């Protein structure tokens, strides 16, 4: 709709990957909080071992809590439910499944040598 905000431009290629924890330390269908370049990031592992990262900040309340939400599915979409008021955010891109005006930032992730790493914040996908 409108122009993207300045911090939502594509991350530079030289952004560093921040180590979070061994994949083994991350339970399936659970999240953990990580500190990534000074920001709280929630890192999740799905039932089929994909790793996703979203901002840990619940956009409704501003509280740093999304890593403590329950992971579930709606159809094929895997989501985390905010532990405060239960809005559902898609793990792959941070879209709120209940309210199109809400979303949380998503981060690149990768697993290298059994270690989970978080990269740059992803640009907002045009919707």
């Amino acid at each position, binding site marked *: 709709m409108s122009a993207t905000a300045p911090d939502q431009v594509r991350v530079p290629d030289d952004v560093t990957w921040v180590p979070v924890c061994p994949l083994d330390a991350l339970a399936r*269908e659970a999240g953990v*909080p990580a500190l990534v370049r000074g920001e709280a990031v929630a890192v999740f592992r799905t039932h089929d071992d994909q790793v996703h990262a979203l901002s840990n900040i619940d956009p409704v309340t501003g509280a*740093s809590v999304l890593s*403590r939400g*329950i992971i579930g599915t709606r159809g094929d979409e895997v989501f985390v439910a905010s532990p405060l008021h239960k809005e559902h955010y898609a793990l792959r891109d941070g879209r709120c499944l209940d309210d199109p005006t809400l979303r949380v930032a998503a981060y690149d992730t990768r697993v290298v040598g059994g270690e989970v790493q978080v990269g740059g914040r992803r640009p907002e996908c045009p919707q």
Partner: protein
Amino acid sequence: MTSTTPRPRLVVVGHGMVGHRLVQAAVERGLTATHDVVVVGQEPRPAYDRVALTSYFAASGPEELSLLPSGSYDDPAVELVLGTEVTAIDRAARTVVLSDGRVLAYDQLVLATGAAPFVPPVPGHDLDGCFVYRTIEDLDAIRAAAGPATAGVVVGGGLLGLEAANALVQLGLETHVVEMAPRLMPVQLDEAAGATLVRHVEGLGVQVHTGVATESVSGTGRVDGLALAGGARIDAQVVVFSAGVRPRDALARAAGLEVAERGGVLVDEQCRTSDGRIWAVGECAAPGGRMYGLVAPGYDMAEVVVDALLGGAGRFVGADMSTKLKLLGVDVASFGDAFATTEGALELVFSDAVAGLYKKLVVSDDGRRLLGGILVGDASAYGVLRPMVASGIDLPENPEELILPASRGGAATGVASLPPEAQVCSCNNVTKATLLDRLGEAHPGPDGAEHHCEDVAALKACTGAGSTCGSCVGTVKALVEDHFAAQGREVSRALCEHFALSRAELFDVVAIHGYRSFDEVVAAHGTGRGCDVCKPTVASVLASLVNEHVLGDQRAVLQDTNDAFLANIQRNGSYSVVPRIPGGEITPDKLIVIGEVARDHGLYTKITGGQRIDLFGARVEELPVIWRRLVDAGFESGHAYGKSLRTVKSCVGSTWCRFGVQDSVQMAIDLELRYRGLRSPHKLKGGVSGCARECAEARSKDFGVIATEKGWNLYVGGNGGATPAHARLLAGDLDDETLVRYLDRYLMYYVRTADRLQRTAPWLDSLEGGLDRLREVVVDDVLGLGSELEAAMARHVATYVDEWSAVLDDPDKLARFVSFVNAPETPDPAVSFGTARDQIVPAGPVDLGATIAVGAPA
């Protein structure tokens, strides 16, 4: 500007159920916009539910039966005068004279003086120990006399007589019923139905003497027995006369109004007496010369009079005298032409003496129409049969299927077969069409805003259906379910998109298959990978059944955040911590520890409503340190975070209180320690009061225990919150052991069969048969489930461990309590605090005010 012309005044004589209904109708239909209303009641209190009079013994006080608990009408045009009799009517002057000397002018006068019990003039009928059964004062007197008595006898085996017998049984008396007619309830039941009822009633220990007249009441000054015709004698110290009622028409007679041959103020179809300004309604009236001794026709008459005063053309043209009730636990119903007096009427009877069932249908000579019937032992078909009589619809091909038990080829009698005009609730005259309208159409709700009725409770509140005698609630429920099913909006009890099962069904499935994990359950009975609804539900069911640690074996990912961190999340992402303080009793040393922990960690402290102390503002990584100190001082988790037992609140009881009759603190501690950690469909709270003053507010809890001289009364299904409910008496005067046994059964039955997030009050309402059904299951053990439920509770008690200690002892579980997995030393900067009233409060970016999300918080 006020008008100088005085407003016309309506005076209502009598504030019983019908007088009250008339005033209500006057307020609701706008008559009070033009008229002032003065209601004069003889009894010392506002109208109460006389139909439910027997439940007074189980009630905490008369206010529980009150139809006007606030004591006054919410309309300044209505004045209520209590404890005052109207002694005369001066028709010429258009005034009435009150017993306090006041003279009230009227423009319109309504007589709603009701009826008085008829006491047969046998010798000794006025001895001490003789009573009637009509008012709360009568019941108080009977209760007082029952204290030292061992046996009581009720003269009269009609509907009210059996109610009175029930009361004597409840008061612990050896109980007799004497009926002059050859059977019980001669007005409603035929010979065979009466015989079936006698077997039921005698099975409950009541001795029935039918076909025998009362000769005299014996005793010198006080009653010591009853002499029967033929020489037999019954020893008894309490005698209750229940031999019918007579209209209270003396006032009308003295004023020269016409009265009916057999008593009652003669009125026309608009309930107008022979004086055009005077009306009569209820049991004192005789429309067309006939008196109606039920409340529903009285309500109809009240509506007709208000309609007439508003210029309407409403008519009272007779009433449905159908009756359905539960007498001493036995279902009895009689409706329509129960005695087959219609010419050519045929009878169709199903009788099973062994099971105590008698069911009779009366059908027209062509077999096409249902004319009436009698049901004893099982009246579940009443809700469908009675409207069939009223509407005259065609009977199905094989009408016998309507009364045969399902196991013998009977069909379920569906509400779909009822025509729209069928009257579902006869007490409040609500038809099927009205109920369906309210379900389908938006209409103004109680708060004035447009709304839809979505369930039985809303429909009851909106239409009044089922709110008087309650016999139609099952039918209303079936209508709601059918309605939504027909819309494709099946009242789905499915948990969520992943499970088509309700919580109760899921519970059974998990119990039968012995599943131990969510993965097993969803693989076998669900789809997808679950969600924030089904995962905590399955986790709760597993905890109720297996009672292993909620954070063990991959179960942490199933738990809501409160259970997942064994603490209560707050708006800024910090947590509060509540240690258990059983019964609210705590030593100074332990109090000091709580203070020290709070001070050292900078926590905000507040006393909770459940007699504990809540410590707010703990960061997630601080929780284990705080628990360590609390556990070392002898505390354990208070489960404030769980859908589980919270507290059992108590008053100080007999140990300190000069009024206490039992040790409520000890009992509260025992119960809290017994049920601590029990995972349930919703939170559970209890209370124990040491005397009837009820200082522990136990009846606002899911289970409330109130001390009596002889033991404990057990109340169930109360809660505070947005929809407050008063707990109702399940059983009285229990010893400690029986109390705990009933509580074990009640709580486990709730845990097994309630819906997700359904507290005990709505669960109780949703049970077919409500509190009576629960009593059958818990007290009478009709399902034979008692020992199984007790064993399940015993397992729970035996396997309880403190959840906090178990985390402290397990490094794997402790690992989750960090600020950041990759920077455990760095506190989360998003959690910050300010100060208010000398304590911390959440601060920072959190602004909840405007953004409460839709849907209720879990």
